[in-house]
């Protein structure tokens, strides 16, 4: 076939651009060859009006940022209630966030989409939503970050891992990297750079999310609104300095590569499809049509050379090897997603999930054996226990705690239902309009299968929410822009292949839809402030708390028993193997003794432990946690008084947020 293209295969640039997909068509074209939308030649790239409009939006977004930043000076964390950070955020900071989201929605509905402007809004939004705690709090939030600091410190100090000491050492990749990075960069510990983890992890998520969304649609408005929805609903807080925060990025990257370059070609699927469809159609026409839908060739294929394909596959294997090395859960989500895509013939090669499974099993059998030996029975007993998983993941979280905490838990459920409902409606609408989103529907459904395998200590549903969120955000955004898939009006080789992606010919959105998008975005934003930072009173760590715990390490000799009154103590960041740690609230009897201010059972427990010295520490976070769990606000204060009056404990350190007691052994025995 003779090509009609110029000899150099280049098409002359035109001054117009497709308002729907931003492609630059030839100057003679009336329709976009990529998405099929009618080209509006009256829309000039840089008219005075559009420049003014863009300038206003830039100013609006920067004003929102400055207003937000200045208002943070008035945040007083000591006044925080169990509603979380929102209870101390000044009104101007919330107004600034709303202003930014509204500005983003306005930028989304320009006649000619200007992506750098949308990117600016999104970058500011990420910084404002995820960096706020770093700016207003004194130390990295979450007690678990301090434990991660301790694991890293152990590797830095000893140059080894001890799989029998901590479960983390069975998947130590992330911590080995942290130890190397911390030591070589000249840091003392990870706390210096871990505090910004939510900001940089979320910034890194942006690029793979963008690539995943571009493999699903050419409509840039869906892509950018989907990205915005993702950041407005990512309240799970798995993006702190942790293996799962990094592994989620790698999971997104693997999916992005597979969906961009490894979709099955139409020629490959079409050979067997008619025969199988006929056979299944004889059984049931419905099954036949489902099969046809599931195996229909994909649109938006990206050309790839065989050499590139091989190198990209090798990269996926290397990245997956790091996942297996560094986190127990993410490889299973990745295998589930890749297997579903392969089983339904959406991607190649078919051996990829087999190789991934083999790598995961090999690591578990040979390297994580110490963990499996101690937990295999518990892991196996969880399989198929759906009722127990739902109870530990949902019911126990909603009914436990004080009224404010229960309200936060209920808001989280409502916000989850909202984003899932929007996504469900969006997916159904696109389905009815003729789009074939098989890949993305599979990716949205498959993670739910994990709850049948594990409850993951009551956290599995949270992880499922996190892993399905990108696709849910995409479908939720698509609800507002889904228009009938039409036969493209310029039939070329490429456009006929892309016909399922035909977009609205005008590329315009009604006023009602624009208002709806604004309202939904603001609702998600307000919900985010409650859902993400609802536990902040417990999660934040003050300088005084950390000073208290550092003092504890400076006075406690090796081998001491370190006791905490309640959960959420920011300790174990040094010498994790040198001390015995115990939290009184982990034991029912000791917890009851603490609540009833009965010191005798605690004394009995300490004396039976036979450690040279015992220290008991009470901190602000513990008191906040006890109160959140439904205890009266002064429970730990009264317990503190009971300790002193028992004459078995002596106060050896005291500051505003931390008290350390030394246990005095009876000399008579």
């Amino acid at each position, binding site marked *: 076939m003779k090509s009609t293209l110029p000899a150099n295969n280049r098409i002359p640039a035109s001054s117009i651009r497709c308002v729907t997909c931003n492609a630059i068509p030839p100057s003679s074209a009336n329709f976009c060859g990529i998405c099929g939308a009618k080209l509006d030649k009256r829309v000039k790239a840089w008219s005075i009006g559009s420049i003014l409009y863009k300038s206003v939006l830039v100013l609006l977004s920067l004003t929102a940022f400055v207003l937000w930043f200045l208002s943070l000076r008035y945040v007083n964390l000591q006044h925080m209630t169990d509603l979380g950070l929102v209870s101390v955020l000044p009104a101007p900071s919330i107004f600034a966030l709303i202003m930014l989201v509204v500005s983003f929605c306005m930028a989304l509905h320009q006649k000619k989409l200007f992506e750098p402007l949308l990117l600016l809004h999104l970058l500011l939004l990420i910084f404002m939503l995820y960096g706020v705690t770093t700016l207003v709090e004194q130390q990295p939030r979450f007690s678990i970050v301090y434990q991660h600091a301790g694991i890293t410190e152990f590797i830095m100090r000893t140059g080894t891992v001890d799989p029998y000491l901590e479960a983390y050492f069975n998947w130590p990749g992330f911590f080995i990297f942290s130890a190397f990075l911390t030591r070589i960069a000249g840091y003392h510990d990870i706390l210096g750079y871990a505090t910004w983890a939510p900001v940089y992890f979320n910034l890194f998520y942006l690029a793979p999310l963008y*690539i995943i969304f571009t493999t699903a649609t050419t409509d840039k408005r869906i892509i950018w609104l989907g990205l915005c929805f993702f950041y407005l609903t990512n309240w799970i807080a798995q993006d702190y300095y942790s293996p799962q925060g990094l592994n989620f990025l790698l999971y997104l*990257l693997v999916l992005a590569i597979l969906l961009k370059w490894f979709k099955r070609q139409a020629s490959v699927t079409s050979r067997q499809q008619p025969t199988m469809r006929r056979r299944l159609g004889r059984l049931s026409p419905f099954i036949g049509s489902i099969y046809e839908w599931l195996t229909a060739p994909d649109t938006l294929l990206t050309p790839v050379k065989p050499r590139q394909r091989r190198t990209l596959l090798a990269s996926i294997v290397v990245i997956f090897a790091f996942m297996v090395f560094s986190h127990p859960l993410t490889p299973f989500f990745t295998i589930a997603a890749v297997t579903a895509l392969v089983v339904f013939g959406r991607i190649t090669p078919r051996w990829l999930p087999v190789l991934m499974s083999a790598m995961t099993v090999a690591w578990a059998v040979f390297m994580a054996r110490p963990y499996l030996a101690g937990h295999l029975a518990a892991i196996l007993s969880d399989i198929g226990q759906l009722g127990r998983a739902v109870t530990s993941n949902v019911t126990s979280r909603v009914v436990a705690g004080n009224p404010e905490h229960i309200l936060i838990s209920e808001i989280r459920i409502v916000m989850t239902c909202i984003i899932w409902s929007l996504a469900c409606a969006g997916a159904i609408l696109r389905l009815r309009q003729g789009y074939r989103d098989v890949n993305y529907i599979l990716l949205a459904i498959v993670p739910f299968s994990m709850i049948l395998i594990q409850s993951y200590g009551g956290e599995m549903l949270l992880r499922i929410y996190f892993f399905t969120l990108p696709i849910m955000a995409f479908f939720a955004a698509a609800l507002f822009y889904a228009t009938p898939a039409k036969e493209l009006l310029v039939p070329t080789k490429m456009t006929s292949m892309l016909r399922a992606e035909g977009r609205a010919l005008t590329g315009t959105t009604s006023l009602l839809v624009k208002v709806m998008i604004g309202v939904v975005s603001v609702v998600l934003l307000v919900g985010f402030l409650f859902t993400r930072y609802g536990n902040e009173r417990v999660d934040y760590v003050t300088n005084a708390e950390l000073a208290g715990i550092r003092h504890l390490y400076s006075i406690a000799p090796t081998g001491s028993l370190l006791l905490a009154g309640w959960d959420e103590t920011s300790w174990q960041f040094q010498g994790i193997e040198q001390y015995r740690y115990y939290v009184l609230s982990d034991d029912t009897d000791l917890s009851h003794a603490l609540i009833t201010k009965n010191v005798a059972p605690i004394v009995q427990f300490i004396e039976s432990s036979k450690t040279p010295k015992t220290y008991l520490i009470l901190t602000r976070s513990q008191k906040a946690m006890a109160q959140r769990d439904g205890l009266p606000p002064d429970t730990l204060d009264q317990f503190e008084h009971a300790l002193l009056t028992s004459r078995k404990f002596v106060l050896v350190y005291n500051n505003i947020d931390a008290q350390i007691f030394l246990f005095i052994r009876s000399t008579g025995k």
Partner: protein
Amino acid sequence: MARKLKRLRNYSEALLPAEHRAQRDKLPLRISWSTWLYPTMIILSIVAASLVTFVFSGIVVRPFLLMWFLFVCPGMTVVRFFQLNEVVIEWLLAFALSIALDTFIAGILLYAGWWSPIHILVILIGFCLIGAIMQFVVIYSSSI
């Protein structure tokens, strides 16, 4: 202008018949200023990382320069051979592969009982140096 040209190239890529694409794919590497940029950047990063580690170890910018080297260079050394022509994917892959390579080398030394951050860095520097030199060789042989 460069972005316009890139969009135009993507547009023409979509319309280019498969047989033309296959012919074009057999052509040698296209040399542009960015082809030289990446190996040069890796070499400069190696020099900077070596200086702040072994000579000026107390300098304030040490964490930033070493993080730049560890997060970008080992991966970029490999990724440039893929010839993806997609900047975002190239940088993302470089970041992911850098972390993976850093960790694998550190992990091998740790499990072998030879844990030493300096030795890990030296191995990574050597790896990047060889990769950058190979990139120069490939570019040079393509340009003549």
